[in-house]
């Protein structure tokens, strides 16, 4: 099996705030991420697809097609957007790295029909990221 990874970057703003918690609890739990006017990040997304190369094309899937899927499903939805207010899939959820990575998996998984989605890693900063993969697989071995 071959693993193929494509990386994209998008810039978005967000705020961590749970309306069911008091102002004090929100501040205590979310710290500076609770600033009411929000803040933003340059996110880096790594999408890994698994599969066997097609004997004719030598490709697991055409990178152009993966690029188009990522453009349509992720860039148009999230790039230069406010994740709390403009991304319907995140409505009512705290837009943490964990939740965004899971939403990205759910958006991409049905769209990738050549090969199969293997792993999604979303960096919020170089030192903070979330991995999402099928239960039973592993995120090990990814520098």
């Amino acid at each position: 099996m071959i693993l193929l990874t494509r990386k994209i970057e998008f810039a978005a703003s967000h705020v961590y705030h749970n309306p069911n918690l008091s102002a004090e609890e929100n501040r205590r739990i979310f710290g500076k991420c609770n600033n009411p006017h929000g803040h933003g990040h340059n996110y880096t997304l790594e999408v890994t697809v698994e599969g066997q190369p097609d004997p004719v094309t030598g490709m697991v899937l055409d990178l152009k097609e993966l690029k188009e899927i990522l453009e349509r499903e992720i860039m148009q939805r999230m790039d230069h957007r406010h994740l709390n207010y403009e991304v319907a899939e995140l409505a009512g959820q705290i837009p943490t790295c964990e939740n965004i990575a899971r939403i990205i998996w759910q958006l991409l998984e049905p769209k990738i029909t050549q090969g199969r989605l293997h792993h999604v890693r979303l960096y919020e900063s170089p030192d903070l990221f979330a991995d999402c993969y099928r239960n039973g697989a592993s995120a090990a071995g990814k520098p």
Partner: protein
Amino acid sequence: MSNALKVELGRRYRFSASHRLHSPHLSAEENCRVFGKCNNPFGHGHNYVLEVSMSGDVDPATGMIANLADLDTFVERQVLEEFDHKSLNEDVSAFREKVPTTENLCMEIFQRLKSFPKAKLERIRVQETANNSFEYAGDNVEGKQR
């Protein structure tokens, strides 16, 4: 669908430390042959990068597997305070007996972090230089290499 998915939180930390690779069970010549310039008697140092991966349920109230402030405090106390700007051989008791290779460093750090109360430690990765890194997921888990 969510049950079929696993989500992990990854966090990177940095520390700088010195070490010397030397085994008292080997002769001076053997130490020199096995460890090469890493056997220099006065030691040398690295800027290490520690990557910690935690798994668990994403709390719907916070959207988090674990609060980063809790994880940072824990890693600071368990590892960074004792390792950063220290001599691994002299300042970390585990390495009075064991050679402070990055393999042994991984196992020592994993032991120190596996008791994090708010999430499950899946694995750690220690990067010694930009060109080499080591992963450890505990001995009861079969590490699946991609």
